[in-house]
């Protein structure tokens, strides 16, 4: 028996430790520890409800936009205007969120995950004239390789040509995601931490110059997704096919759905959305979403026991460091008492399971190229593939929404803050199902609870001792080289964890 401890896990958002027990080269136990608590839910109490939208974005600088959306939906429902958001505002919200999520997926694959597979030092052999690759070659020849070394050594399998191509795309992707953020900013002022999304709609009024500028930046993103991102995922997958069997996980998937396609239905769990609401499992049969089945356990988290097992509407955040069996600042959300994974894989699989024709075609043709059955989706490479398809699905939908905007028509509906009220805001952040819940008393926030994608995925054991989704995905994995545990970091990064979000 031996231990592998990785602290910090890098190329993710935030402060994560992974602690494993390894026996005969196979992981027997895994513990995921969120290492930073800020107490944002405590900070929110007593404030003007409208400020939740500003403050919750600061939960995460990588996915602020999704918190802005979840907060706005939450406040819309608490203010009783859920079914009254003007169509223009709903579209602008979708465009802001869509552009943000697409650039986030690109950032994840190239800048957070790719260095686990791509050997950038192969660029020393580059003899061509591409200015990006030449600058990397010069950089390497100067001999100071931070931040690209140190790194795990050994399992880099791509040919020099593919490594060079992938490195060129790594650099190109920096530009592409920056353009994605410009699209967000077009309608939302600035990003990270943008100001455009508010309860009642959005602050901005769409104008033709913004629409056309957004359109042609969208085309740049689509081109990159079609001609670099998806082909690169497939190319890496073909050289690392064993990673279609590594990191399988709990096989229960949950999606809140996202990108409202109608605004009248105040019930977010059955409103018509681009990504569908629901759950699915290994059989890929769809099941509906019942948010009353969500609870958060804290027996293995650093919070007072009395707050365990509650629905977020009754949730509490009472820190108690160092007690009993606890080992993380992350709570353990469960659905009907069971372990569920969220993320691009979940929303793609749920939408696929419901038979959405566009999604079915996307998934089926990718699987046909890989000559693989849908079961391979439950894996490290399956998550990367689902993320790339999620990017394409969103990007390809945005053009239609954009052209439905009506300059001059309203983007905001007025409201009054109620004396008392409750609300729920559900959406899909880049990393998966994101929920905000509010209780208002005397026109102030009495309680605010966030259950965030990585809260689900990186959760510690629940009150019944069941490990969280990421822990389950690591347990049972064979580690080839204990001093270079590629397998563990590849599994962890396939979830695209965000720890600032998970704990908040």
């Amino acid at each position, binding site marked *: 028996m031996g231990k592998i401890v990785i602290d910090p896990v890098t190329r993710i958002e935030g402060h994560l430790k992974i602690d494993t027990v390894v026996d005969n080269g196979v992981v027997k136990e895994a513990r995921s520890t969120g290492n930073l608590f800020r107490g944002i839910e405590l900070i929110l109490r007593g404030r003007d409800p*409208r400020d939740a939208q*500003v403050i919750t974005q600061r939960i995460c600088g990588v996915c*602020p936009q999704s918190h802005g959306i979840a907060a706005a939906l939450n406040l819309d429902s608490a203010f009783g205007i859920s079914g009254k958001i003007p169509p223009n505002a709903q579209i602008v919200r979708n465009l802001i969120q869509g552009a943000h999520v697409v650039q986030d997926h690109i950032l994840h694959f190239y800048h957070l995950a790719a260095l686990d597979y791509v050997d950038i030092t192969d660029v020393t052999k580059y003899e061509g004239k591409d200015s990006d690759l030449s600058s990397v070659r010069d950089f390497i020849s100067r001999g100071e390789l931070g931040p690209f070394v*140190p790194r795990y050594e050994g399992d880099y399998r791509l040919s020099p040509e593919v490594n060079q191509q992938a490195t060129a795309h790594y650099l190109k992707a*920096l530009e592409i995601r920056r353009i994605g953020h410009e699209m967000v900013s077009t309608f939302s002022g*600035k990003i*990270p931490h943008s100001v455009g999304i508010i309860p009642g709609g959005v602050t901005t009024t769409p104008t033709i110059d913004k629409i056309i500028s957004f359109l042609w930046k969208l085309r740049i993103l689509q081109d990159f997704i079609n001609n670099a991102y998806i082909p690169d995922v497939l190319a890496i997958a073909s050289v690392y096919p064993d990673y279609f069997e590594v990191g399988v996980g709990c096989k229960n998937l949950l999606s809140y759905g996202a990108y409202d396609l109608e605004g009248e239905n105040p019930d977010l769990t059955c409103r018509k959305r681009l990504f569908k609401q629901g759950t699915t499992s290994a059989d890929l049969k769809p099941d509906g979403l019942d948010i009353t089945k969500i609870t958060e356990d804290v027996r293995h988290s650093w919070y007072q026991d009395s707050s365990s097992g509650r629905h977020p509407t009754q949730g509490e955040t009472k820190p108690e*460091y160092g007690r009993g069996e606890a080992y993380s600042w992350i709570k353990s959300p469960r659905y009907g008492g069971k372990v569920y994974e969220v993320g691009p894989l979940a929303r793609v699989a749920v939408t696929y399971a419901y038979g959405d024709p566009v999604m079915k075609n996307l998934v089926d043709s990718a699987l046909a190229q890989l000559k693989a059955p849908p079961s391979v989706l439950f894996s490290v490479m399956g998550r990367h593939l689902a993320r790339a398809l999620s990017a394409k699905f969103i990007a390809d939908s945005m053009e239609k929404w954009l052209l439905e905007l009506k300059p001059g028509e309203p983007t*905001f509906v007025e409201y009054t803050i109620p004396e008392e009220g409750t609300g729920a805001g559900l959406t899909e952040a880049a990393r998966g199902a994101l929920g905000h819940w509010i209780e208002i008393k005397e026109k102030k926030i009495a309680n605010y609870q966030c259950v965030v994608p990585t809260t689900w995925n990186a959760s510690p054991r629940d009150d019944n001792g069941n490990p969280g989704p990421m822990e389950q995905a690591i347990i049972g994995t064979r580690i080839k080289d204990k001093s270079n545990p590629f397998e563990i970091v590849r599994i962890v990064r396939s979830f695209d964890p965000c720890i*600032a979000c998970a704990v908040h």
Partner: protein
Amino acid sequence: MVNEIPVIWLQTSACTGCTISLLNSASPTIRNILIDQVIPGAHINLRFHVTIMAGAGEPAIEIMENTAKEKTGNYILVIEGAIPTTKDAVYGAIGERGGKPVEMKDRVEDLARSALAILAVGTCSSFGGIPSAAPNPTGCQSVKQFLDAKDITTPIVNIPGCPPHPDWFVGTVASIILNGLPKADDLDDNLRPLAFYGHLIHENCPRRAYFDEGKFAKKFGDEGCLYELGCKGAITYADCPLRLWNGGTNWCIGAGAPCSGCTQPEFPDLVAPFYEKLVDVELPTIGAYWLPRKEEK
């Protein structure tokens, strides 16, 4: 011979928003900043940054600790985030030593002592920001507050903003490479470079004419000055209206949203509620309520 400037970028009680904002740098691009010689003859050698670096776990921590030893007095320490200081709990840890988590405050103390200079990036790091907001559940402090209490006198430059504009960071670094550390006259009382934080948003706001004429937006989407919808531009120092965000695409007031005062020490508690009009500021003599600036003292 290229001058390699070692940089350690430490994230403490933060959200990574400052890092993502830096990735948005338009010119130089982030590739120019990390790979190329950002100023001819000088290369930023980013040795530790958890969001970007290839390595993980112990080898990553080693490079951080070794840089502090080998490059004592010569490396730049960038801190993104406030410092949790409460004694009864480990609210923030980075890596382990002897199987025990190393607290963020201990990392900051060790690295700050032997740095050439500290760049406190973002409002959390500069002034405490969001994690320090009431009731400050984790006892967060700004870098300056924390180091003053330890009598650590390494020079600090604050680059606030939630997040800061990439130009503010890149411009400050370029200035240090070309001209050395900022002189006292280059910074305001809050240790912000005057080059970027020298004027109020209000002074350069394109909606200023509406303010002077008393034309105020009553609801979102209206034309007019956003003052009555909660704009904090009248007390906020930053060059956003001239610089614009995301490669010159837009900015908060450009999107019809009030300035939230995110570059200020008052952010968030004293500029909230964000959608309520500033209190105790009478019109039209708003200038009398500007925060005191160095030359006015």
